[in-house]
């Protein structure tokens, strides 16, 4: 905590100095017309106040008006506001929606605003996710993925030793054994759960980000593209034209039966959310992003460790994060684009990334985050580099996400995996046909 604030203070000092040097004025004043940029973001998300204030020193004529909506309502809000007569200038949104928003003409292409050297510095996965038809629509600020946290005391008491490197990562059946050993109380109504519930959404299982990787990891990207194992791994046609044959595969159904058993027959994971379960020592294992680890570093409520995410056949984790972009119908597109690009480059990017504690998207910044150079947080970096895959992209991601999440939730609640996946394929197809 202290170190962070010192870093911050010195950073601020540096920027302030830089500003005075450039302007040769102690307080920069706006000489031209004032411009107000309207930002739509989720609470507690970037752009953060400090880099914004620092940026305003260099751009004294820009003011901000920030509107916030909670993450579950973010996509709905964007779809309402983006089409309105007075859209926000800058939107924060879930990264995989980039192509959808680009195709709908909501986002402004920012390729020409990108600084020199950006192409070499950006993580390729981030660039790919935020590009559409050869244009970049969002520079990206942070990158994230999930790994499995564990409560050291509980796990040790149960005599379980979770692996710490990717090479030794568990398979799901091994993980299940650990969940069962560690869980306290009756199956399905535990006092301490084997695998805690997510903190995303309403806490129920099924999210594509976290739960589609069960079946994807049962696939295999190295076999023939016509095989079901290949299709299982991608979960969506690489050309984005169909999901048929990609979700309802024998491999996926097998994996989903296992997934289902965790919530039902084995009873090691709850079907509904329990706020803070892991942080309150009511769960042995827990899947979350680096943000949870960084929160625990600042406030170590429990002793904890990280183990790589388990898999069936091919280890895989989803990448991506919220990101932001300028809107195409902004009244100040130049300034909005400049702000967006500036916020994700150099010191501003560092300030933004270090605030929440996810991973940066610029390779040059990795060295500045000491915490990622060693266990436990290093697991995230390793996973990103070796296992990371974007969520199935395409201009209809939002619909795919909702449909598949509902199907996964149906499976977790006890529905027939093959039927639910077949139904999801049909629904996705209907959307794609339009």
């Amino acid at each position, binding site marked *: 905590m202290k170190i962070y604030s010192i870093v911050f203070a010195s950073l601020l000092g540096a920027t302030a100095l830089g500003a005075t040097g450039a302007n040769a004025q102690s307080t920069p004043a706006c000489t031209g017309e004032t411009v107000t940029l309207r930002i739509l973001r989720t609470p507690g998300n970037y752009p953060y106040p400090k880099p914004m204030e620092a940026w305003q020193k260099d751009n004294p004529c820009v003011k901000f008006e920030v509107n*916030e909506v909670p993450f579950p309502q973010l996509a709905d809000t964007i779809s309402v*506001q983006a089409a309105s007569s*007075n859209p926000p200038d800058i939107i924060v949104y879930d990264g995989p929606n980039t192509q959808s928003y680009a195709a709908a003409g909501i986002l402004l292409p920012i390729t020409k605003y990108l600084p020199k050297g950006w192409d070499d510095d950006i993580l390729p996965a981030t660039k790919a996710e935020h590009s559409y038809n050869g244009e970049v629509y969002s520079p990206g600020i942070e990158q994230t993925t999930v790994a499995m946290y564990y409560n050291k005391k509980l796990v040790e008491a149960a005599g379980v030793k979770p692996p710490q490197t990717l090479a030794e990562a568990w398979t799901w059946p091994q993980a299940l054994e650990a969940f069962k050993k560690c869980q306290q109380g009756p199956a399905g109504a535990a006092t301490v759960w084997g695998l805690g519930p997510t903190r995303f959404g309403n806490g129920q299982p099924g999210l594509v980000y976290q739960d589609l990787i069960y079946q994807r990891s049962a696939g295999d990207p190295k076999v023939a593209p016509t095989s079901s194992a290949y299709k299982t791994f991608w979960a969506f046609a690489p050309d984005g034209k169909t999901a048929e044959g990609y979700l309802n595969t024998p491999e996926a159904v097998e994996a989903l039966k296992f997934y289902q058993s965790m919530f039902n027959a084995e009873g090691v994971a709850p079907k509904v959310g329990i*706020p803070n379960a892991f942080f309150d020592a009511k769960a042995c294992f827990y899947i979350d992003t680096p943000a949870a680890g960084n929160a625990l570093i600042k406030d170590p409520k429990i002793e904890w460790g990280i183990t790589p995410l388990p898999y069936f056949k091919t280890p895989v984790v989803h990448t991506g994060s919220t990101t932001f972009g300028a809107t195409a119908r902004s009244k100040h597109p130049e300034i909005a684009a400049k702000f967006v690009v500036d916020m994700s480059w150099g010191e501003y990017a560092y300030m933004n990334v270090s605030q929440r504690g996810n991973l940066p998207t610029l390779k040059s910044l990795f060295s500045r985050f000491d915490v990622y150079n060693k266990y436990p947080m290093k697991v995230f970096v390793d996973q990103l580099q070796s296992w990371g895959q974007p969520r199935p992209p395409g201009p209809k991601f939002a619909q795919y996400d909702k449909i598949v999440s509902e199907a996964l939730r149906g499976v977790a609640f006890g529905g027939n995996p093959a039927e639910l996946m077949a139904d999801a394929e049909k629904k996705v197809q209907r959307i794609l046909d339009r």
Partner: protein
Amino acid sequence: MRTTRIRRTALTLVIILLIIACFLAPYAWVVASSLKNQFTVFGDVTPLSWRAFVPVGATIENYVSLFERTNILRALSNTAIVAIGQVVFTLLLCSMAAYALTRIKFPGANVVFMLILLTFLLPIEAMMVPLYQVVSGLGLSNTLVGIMIPWIASPFGLFLLKQAFEELPAELEDAARIDGAGHVRIFFSIVLPNVKVPMVTLGLITFLFCWNSFLWPLVIVQDPARQIIQVAIAQQGSPTQLPNWGETFAGATVATVPLILLFLLLQKYFTQGMATSGIKG
């Protein structure tokens, strides 16, 4: 004779206890739990004990955090502003329209009334998208006025007042008319003072409706500074973080208590209004 009476009393008692268990207990649980931390809430439920309904070892920590972390005070005052505005304008517009329909003879009154009656049946929840287009087209999205304006011309309100106005004896205004009073004066000084009860009823129902509205404010307002209470408590979790149970209960309590107090105060009007609208429906 005596045994049947005892049996009846016992039966009455059992029914009352049942009603308490069904209707009061959940509220008691919510309020009591809002004063506990999450694990006490869980612990009191499994196994269930009387403690679940009583704030044993109360802490106001949930409320402190709720008021510190969220904009709930702002949301409460926004809601009060919107609700009062909506009540005032609904009463004014509905009573004026009801007056015209009952006290002034003009051709086409039936058509107008049919037009109004028809909207009574519109499932407005299903019309959010076009309504949004209209309201934002008028530049009213993200404003408090935008929250209330679509509901001011309330067909229900008109309906309720029209019935009340019809019951007023014609003699009441005849005298005034002979004295040369115009419609405006008759409306304000003779008709309105005689329909206080239905006006209070409508005001209360409008207030309730507005205080409890959710879907429309959710769609039309994004600026947290203009958020209203129901949306605020539905969204009180920080991003991607489930709110803890105690705090959610605290939010529910804060959103409900003002309304229940108001209801207890004006209950007579509410039940009366509901009942009359039903009887003559």
